[in-house]
């Protein structure tokens, strides 16, 4: 029923690289619930462009270092 997103992300790896930042901490910093952050991390929800930028800004990296889309 639910079509999975083709957008993949490296949020988990980036959290680990940033002093093992917790999901709760990242969620708080970008202003979403922890459940939403988990859904994004697991590819069960595609964030808005604005939220995607906010997440990449927390890690201090460009957007496509966090999210990627297959070439086809």
């Amino acid at each position, binding site marked *: *029923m*639910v*079509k*999975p*997103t083709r*957008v993949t992300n490296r949020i988990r790896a980036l959290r680990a690289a940033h002093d093992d930042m917790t999901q*709760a901490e990242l969620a708080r910093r970008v*202003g*979403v*619930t*922890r*459940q*939403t952050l988990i*859904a994004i991390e*697991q*590819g*069960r*929800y*595609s*964030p*808005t462009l604005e*939220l995607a930028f906010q997440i990449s800004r927390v890690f201090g990296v460009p957007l496509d270092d966090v999210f990627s889309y297959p070439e086809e």
Partner: protein
Amino acid sequence: MVYEERNTWSTVVVTIIAMAVYVVLVLQQAGGGPLTDVDWAPLMLWTIGASIVGSIVISIVWGILAGMRDPDGVGRSDQRDRDIAHMGGRVGQAFMVIAGLGAIVLCAVDADAFWVANTVFFGFALSALVGGIARVVAYRRGLA
């Protein structure tokens, strides 16, 4: 479970119970006779009122219990909640349209007010139920 998901579950559960209770009460009052003889208006209005109050009470009680476990998540909603609510609304809307068209057709054929009112009532109820189930599925399985 986030605040909006709890509210959705409350709506789904209350809608199922309300529909079942309403059907039982109507059938009881009909007592095997024609359904059009049933004094349906008070039953329907009480069912609608009780559903609204029931949903609110369950949401508040569940919210208090959830808040004791996770105070940070109380009353919060975000972009994902809004996206899921929009999707559920679109799914449920189909039943409102079907009920509206059904009511027009029933009026056109001079059907008893019982059938017109109940078509609209069950259209609303199914809209809430199916839209709610779609939202719950989106919360559990994802909205990509």
